[in-house]
């Protein structure tokens, strides 16, 4: 399996204020698949994504990605893991406002070991014409495409998307999801999307449902749709 999560546990706060974000979650995912994780607010889906992405550490259990155990890694090793293996896309893009589109992508290419060609990725996400613009000069959908380009330029093994359409209208959401499909097909990148939007689940190869910090279900999607076919 490309991703293996075993008995993942995470608690925030202590005593009466303790919140159990993950309570023994288990998940396995094959390489190159698109996986959509669905769940209501507070179910633990963002926590799970953060653990897989090496942003946070588990209190119990373990996670392995592409055979590499990431639980227990040092901060330095986690940074290296994020640098080489993981691409992040956030709900609110988190682009660097003082860098242009091209620079936002290049800044990651500079630190990656084997980056993709910036021009190629800009073309792939159809943002080449905005390359000299600043993020604030773009629409939400365009900004999210820049965020995907930035995540993909390092040619990661794993693309993690946290509510990537949460701040977008339907049209922009569909456009962004088309590009997610495209990079998955073009680069074979394993993609994990967390969302509370059931409509997005249609593009997934695997649909995971999470509730109260546990994986409620993990099913193959037998009726996979294209982004154009989704009902958002």
């Amino acid at each position, binding site marked *: 399996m490309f991703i293996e999560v075993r008995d993942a546990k995470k608690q925030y706060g202590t005593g009466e204020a303790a919140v159990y974000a993950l309570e023994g979650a288990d998940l396995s995912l094959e390489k190159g698949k698109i996986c959509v994780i669905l769940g209501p607010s507070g179910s633990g889906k963002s926590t799970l994504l953060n653990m897989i992405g090496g*942003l*946070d550490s588990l209190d119990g259990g373990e996670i392995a990605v592409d055979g590499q155990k990431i639980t227990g890694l040092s901060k*330095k090793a986690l*940074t290296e893991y994020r640098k*080489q293996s993981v691409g992040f896309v956030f709900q609110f893009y988190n682009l660097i406002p003082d*860098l242009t589109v091209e620079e936002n992508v290049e800044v990651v290419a500079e*630190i990656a070991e084997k980056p993709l060609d910036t021009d190629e990725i800009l073309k792939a996400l159809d943002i080449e014409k905005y390359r000299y613009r600043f993020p604030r000069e773009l629409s939400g959908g365009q900004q999210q495409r820049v965020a995907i380009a930035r995540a993909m330029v390092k040619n990661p093994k794993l693309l993690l998307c946290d509510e990537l359409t949460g701040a977008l209208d339907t049209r922009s959401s569909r456009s962004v999801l088309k590009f997610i499909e495209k990079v998955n097909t073009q680069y074979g990148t394993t993609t994990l999307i967390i969302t509370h939007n059931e409509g997005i689940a249609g593009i997934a190869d695997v649909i995971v449902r999470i509730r109260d910090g546990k994986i409620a279900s993990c099913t193959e999607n037998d009726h996979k749709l294209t982004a154009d076919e989704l009902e958002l």
Partner: protein
Amino acid sequence: MLLRKLLRTAWSYKAQFISMIIMMTLGIGIFLGFNMEWKTIEYDVGNFFEQTKYADYRLYSETGFTKDDLEKIASIDGVDAATRYLSVNLEIKGDSKKALALDVSENYTVSQFTLMDGDGYDENGDGIWLSDKFAKLNDIRIGDTLTLEFQGLDISGKVAGLIKSGEHMICLADSNQVMPDFNTFGFAYISPAKLGEIIRERALNTVKDELKKAGVPDEMINEQAEKMLTDEALAEAADKAFLQINLLSALEKSELEDAVKEKLGKTLMVVPKEDHAVYKEAMGEATEGKAMGSILPVLFLAIAILTMVTTMHRISTQEKTQIGVLKALGFKNRTILLHYSFYGLFIGVVGAALGGVLGYFVCKMVMSENGMMGTYFDMPDWSAATPAFCYPIVAGTVLLLALISFLSVRVQLRGTAADALRPYTPKKMKKSVLEKLPFFSGMSFSTKWNLRDLMRHKSRFAMTLVGIVGCMILLVGGLGMRDTMAGFLDLLDNGISHYATKVNIVENAEREKVDKLIADLDGDWESYSGISIDGYTATLDIVCNENGRFRIIDENNKDIDLRDDGVYLCLRLADRAKIGEYIEFSPYGGEEAYRVKVVGYNRSIMTESVTMTDKYADELGIKYSVSAVYTNKDSSEIPSSELISGKQDKRQLMDSFQSFVSIMDSMVFILVVAAVILGIVVLYNLGIMSYVERSRELATLKVLGFRNKKIGQLLISQNIWLTVIGVILGLPAGLGTLYWMLTALAGEYEMKLMLGPLTYSVSILLTFSVSLLVGWMVARKNKKIDMVEALKNTE
């Protein structure tokens, strides 16, 4: 409830709140401290002068004043009191390195002393009233016998009381001495009755000498001398002793001069207290304090207020959502404004209270018996006075801070509650000229990012520069002052003075005897006396330096081969005439006026003087007497003589500067500490603000796989750029400030701006160190950044 919110918000912005309180404390503290210092000088010195009836005017006559002269002057309308006065420097018998100014105030209505211990003044007393500081440092107690040498005579008496005197509040042997040194020089008073005895003894000795010369047998000399010493002869001798009249009067100088001329039928040298060394120096200190008080504190206060503007604006933008929530909950704009105005008010009140305490200590550090001025001023009472204008300024500053908060929040309250609830959006930025330059695209992303960040946050950028420039000004000013002083002392010690001992000659000494003494001492000499150049008081310096015991130098410290056909103006008088032009001066106490050609300029580091050779003075027919002889002989090798009023070792003179240097070192230390605090507080406050504003971007970089070190470098590199710019701007600003300080604060000396390479290096290195330290402190925070939390925030 809102008060609780205020306190919690203050805690969450503790770095900003603490730094603003520190800045306010420093600003108000230094503002109050410096202004209290000069006000206290004026207040305490004024009180002491009033208490000791410090003379408003001093009249000088080379031939002395008779009792009749005194009566005439006392009868002038507007003269409240007058006394014949004597002040002469005498050596302590058996210790030629220690001397006293011996004073007699004949009718003790003017120029009195304050008794610190022992018996009070007695006009018929036989005792000596001695400076308490001199007594303490030389282990002399009440009842001890003190013997002074006076023109071959011994003046001996028991110490009756220990005193302080307004006339000697700054106790200097002569104009060459800069700082009092009570180890070697003090002052004392004797009664007119005791002076009468001394005069009588001296007159008797003179008569005996004459009888001896006339061949009268020894056994008859005493008897005949007593007979010859008539009351008239004694009165004449006393008249010659009193070369000075001190008086109290509210008359203008010109009015008094006219009245004196009318009463005595001759023009006298009338010196108002403003021109008397003690008053002039004391008020000079107050003026210097005022000058210092108008620049440094204003710099600190301005930086404090500007920091407040920048910080409150940032806080209010970060609080925008909370402001929106309060508005949406139904709080009136007025209530919200009042609540946030309390932020500024809180900082202002706490800063003003702490500043008041700091100001008091700054003032006391300067103005107290054990403070910096304690070594300069010798007075009994040391208080702490605050100028009245300081109160409204401090109150106004506190209110201004509240207003800054008010205005910062009012901007966020414009529009509807929904508008206020929307997060703050930074203003859109157009491409700067820099970005349009071809090389910009080739820059690294961190360079571009930092440059754009600076362009977008111009006020933060400007404030950081102000902090760095301020830091540099204080460092260059402080350390440069030390260098300049060191250069000044080196010039005085090794450049100008090539003698071992300066021998002061009594006034009206016979020239033949003086010439013999000069020859015996193998010395050079000079004569200095007061002159008026169009009403401006200066010193006429007639010199003969054939043996090179002292040098006359030009502005480049090169020797001047003095010409015998004109005069040299010191650089501070240079604007009075160009070379080749003529000036006219008249010596005080005489009717003559001399028109002389200016043939050059010289550096006269201690006095404002017009210098000429003795040959030229003789050619002009100027009457003068030798004031001092400079010799290579050690003072212990020079026997006492009626011609000598005192001897001063060069080493002793240079040592007297040491306390001055110590004061300066303390000031330099304060300036360096202030510079470092200013730098750290301003840069840390702005650095934290920058960090908080960019925390989301920094977290993103961290998520993308950037190492902490790389992100830290990014933050520090911005500080380094700003420091480079700040240093480039701060160096000339520091030099300018130092130049201003030298002209405004040390106008009495001709100091030349001198900065050693070490000062440049230390100033730059220290500024960079402060900047790097703060950059490192801020960058360290990056390690603790919570990527998940930072990225959760909504845009």
